[in-house]
């Protein structure tokens, strides 16, 4: 048994031996590697320089980039005043809650892998370590102290110049932005010289514009001190524009720019033609043929250095102009031959115009006029005005200060004035009555008999010296008339000339030559000497007027039906020399007063027509 026991011990020893023989291998696979060399690494922290103060104004992310020489970044450790503030690999977040307005230490520790492929590199224990130190300071850019104070002046070329105070902190550059009324902001300039605290905007010409100047604080990513300025300017309105008529189809626009900035004014007329005003204050443009009323001009105000072709990119203004027109726009006018003035009245006011058609007096009349009301003056200075109720008010002169009387007329009556007399035709009774102008005493009545006919114009005519009187009976349907011209002596009428069934539509006695009358036919008019009753001259066309001040004759050249223009001729008082021939728009009328050609209330001096 003892032998067995020994055997058992022997087996146990073997077992222990077994366990000590576990597999093992001592091959280390040693690799010869070169140790990593020193490298140069760096950091670009938003462009700021190490060991200098970084300014921040708000919760800020300072983005940075690293120069790692191709080495893998293991970690970044950020410390503010020695306390860890995270390890972001692309930015440093700084909260204003972390810092006060003192300087703080910012440390950035960068750890790179060696990349050698060694075991230590594998274990991330073989590293390049870079440590960078910065200073941080909080800037309250909204404080009054830090706000830039911006003001405006003009430079030597009158361009808008913005100037601002020196900033309270060192800056690298200034960015100047313009801001329009709709909030759009545009960078108009960057000033890299921190000592230059001004900027000229050559693109400002007019209107609301706000500027923002941002002074970028040195050593900061996005810290800037701001200043705002809204341009002070004078509003441009229609009073700053004026159109001067230079001819029948030519005018000049005058621009009184209340602001000093160089500009280019682009004028676009009714037809779309473009004119530009770069220097000076006036520009010529074509207008529609005289007379025009409320014709549109589009005006574009551009900065001077802009091409006018870009005008559509700028605001435009509407401006309406008309040919020169009589003040008050009277319905009816006539010439005060005593005072050599034009007088006229609209529905409620009376105007007196001088020789240059400037309104020099006006009076309010206590009655209304109708569209058919007449106004007339007597050669003795009296003024006759027909009101809406057909009363003929007679005044002592054109001041209307003294009304002599009011002569009642019928609504169909027509009247005319001479020197001291007033002639009135009554188409109902076919009579011609003559009154004493100063007293309204009827001197006589001449009855022509016949039936009542309302399709006719039964009108009187009286020479300016009361020597001659005429009556015309014009039928609108047949366009034929009969007329009689008398010499008037007291209450006696001596017929000087008469015709029947002739296309006469008007008879005009000449103020400048009392013995001369114009008998107007449909396509011509005859100048008849009343002493001899001979036709001195017959002119093809339609008689329009004789200028009481110059004696020049205005007539309209016959035109074809539907013509868009009317052609006029002005002859000298000898009726031979043609002074002017011109065309106008096809409005009816046309008269001469002191060499002003007038259609309705529009007027233009004949010199302008001649010189255009």
């Amino acid at each position, binding site marked *: 048994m003892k*032998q*067995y026991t020994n*055997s*058992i011990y*022997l*087996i146990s020893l*073997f*077992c222990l*031996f*077994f*366990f000590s*023989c*576990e*597999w*093992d*291998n001592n*091959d*280390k*696979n*040693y*690799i*010869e*590697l070169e*140790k990593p060399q020193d490298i140069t690494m760096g950091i670009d922290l938003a462009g700021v320089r190490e060991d200098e103060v970084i300014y921040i104004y708000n919760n800020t992310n300072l983005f940075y980039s690293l120069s790692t020489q191709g080495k893998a970044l293991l970690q970044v450790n950020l410390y503010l005043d020695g306390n860890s503030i995270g390890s972001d690999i692309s930015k440093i977040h700084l909260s204003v809650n972390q810092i006060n307005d003192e300087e703080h230490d910012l440390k950035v520790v960068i750890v790179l892998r060696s990349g*050698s*492929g*060694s*075991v*230590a*590199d*594998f*274990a991330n*224990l*073989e590293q390049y370590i870079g440590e960078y130190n910065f200073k941080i300071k909080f800037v309250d850019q909204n404080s009054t102290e830090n706000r830039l104070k911006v003001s405006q002046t003009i430079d030597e070329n009158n361009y808008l110049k913005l100037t601002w105070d020196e900033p309270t902190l060192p800056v690298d550059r200034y960015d100047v932005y313009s801001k329009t009324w709709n909030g759009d902001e545009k960078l108009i300039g960057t000033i890299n010289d921190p000592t230059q605290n001004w900027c000229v905007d050559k693109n400002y010409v007019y209107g609301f514009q706000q500027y923002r100047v941002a002074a970028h604080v040195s050593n900061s990513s996005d810290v800037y001190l701001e200043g705002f300025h809204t341009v002070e300017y004078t509003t441009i309105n229609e009073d700053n524009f004026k159109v001067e008529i230079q001819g029948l189809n030519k005018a000049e626009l005058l621009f009184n720019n209340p602001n000093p900035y160089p500009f280019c004014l682009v004028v676009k007329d009714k037809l779309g033609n473009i004119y530009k005003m770069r220097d000076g204050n006036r520009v010529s443009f074509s207008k529609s043929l005289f007379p025009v009323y409320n014709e549109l001009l589009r005006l574009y105000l551009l900065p001077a250095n802009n091409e006018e072709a870009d005008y559509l990119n700028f605001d435009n203004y509407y401006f309406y102009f008309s040919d020169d027109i009589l003040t008050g726009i009277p319905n009816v006018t006539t010439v005060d031959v005593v005072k050599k003035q034009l007088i006229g009245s609209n529905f409620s006011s009376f105007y007196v115009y001088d020789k240059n058609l400037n309104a020099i007096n006006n009076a309010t009349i206590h009655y209304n006029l109708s569209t058919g009301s007449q106004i007339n003056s007597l050669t003795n200075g009296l003024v006759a005005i027909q009101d809406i109720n057909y009363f003929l008010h007679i005044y002592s002169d054109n001041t209307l200060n003294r009304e002599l009387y009011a002569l009642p007329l019928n609504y169909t009556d027509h009247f005319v004035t001479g020197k001291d007399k007033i002639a009135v035709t009554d188409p109902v009774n076919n009579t011609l009555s003559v009154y004493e102008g100063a007293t309204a005493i009827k001197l006589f009545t001449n009855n022509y008999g016949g039936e009542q006919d309302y399709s006719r114009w039964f009108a009187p005519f009286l020479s300016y010296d009361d020597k001659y009187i005429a009556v015309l009976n014009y039928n609108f349907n047949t366009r034929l008339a009969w007329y009689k011209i008398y010499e008037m002596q007291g209450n006696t009428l001596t017929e000087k000339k008469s015709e029947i069934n002739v296309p006469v539509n008007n008879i005009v006695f000449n103020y400048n030559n009392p013995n001369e009358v114009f008998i107007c036919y449909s396509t011509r008019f005859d100048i008849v000497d009343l002493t001899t009753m001979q036709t001195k001259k017959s002119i093809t066309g339609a008689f329009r007027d004789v200028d009481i001040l110059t004696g020049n004759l205005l007539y309209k050249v016959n035109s074809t039906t539907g013509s868009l223009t009317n052609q006029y001729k002005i002859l000298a008082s000898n009726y031979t020399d043609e002074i002017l021939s011109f065309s106008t728009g096809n409005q009816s009328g046309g008269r001469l007063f002191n060499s002003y050609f007038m259609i309705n209330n529009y007027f233009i001096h004949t010199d302008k027509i001649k010189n255009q």
Partner: protein
Amino acid sequence: MKRIIIITFLTIISLGAKSQFSVNYSAGYASYKMNDMKELMTFSLQMGISSGNLPPNAKLVDIFPAYVMHTVDVGYQSGNKEGGLKLSYMTTGSKIAVADYSGSYEEKLITNGYRMGVFYRHHFCNMTIKQHTLSFFAELSPALTIATMKTKSKLEINKSDNTTLTEKGEEINQKKTGYSIQPLAGARFKLYNHLLLTASAGYDFEFGASLGSGYRMDFSGFRINAGVGYMF
């Protein structure tokens, strides 16, 4: 366990007075198939390097090589037949390693097999040379195999102050059970009627010991043994 073995021996001893007991120790050389484990280690190396979990210069310096094994058996022989208990210890492993100026890294995976079984040995030829006996035998041994696996990893970094930073990885241990059958052929030389010299060769068929995912610790392989023993 020890008590069970002792009781088993005593039972066998009491079977017959003419029978002979023997105790043998054999040291041998064993190859290990370990196909799954080799594939696993190769794949791990490739993946580890490409993923950065292993140093780029790491390589497999050993992968489940043939290695020394130890066997102890206790037999009882009667005539040409011999039977008994047999205990074998198998060990092999794999190693990933790299070292350079900065330090070293190694990762070992060690597999051990504890084969516990019985054997039947038939001595089919006996020759007497002087007072010694030479016999040739065939043997068949079924057994239960307890397979263990463990990993060891170690990182050593040479610091600039000439000290070493050592970091050991977490060990993973696995234990699985398989079974095997091992045919052998051998010769035994009995000297002076007690001292035994044996030599044998054969193949060990191992089954089981799966680690899951289709991998298993396969200790199958050729066996060559030489041993000494004592016959009572």
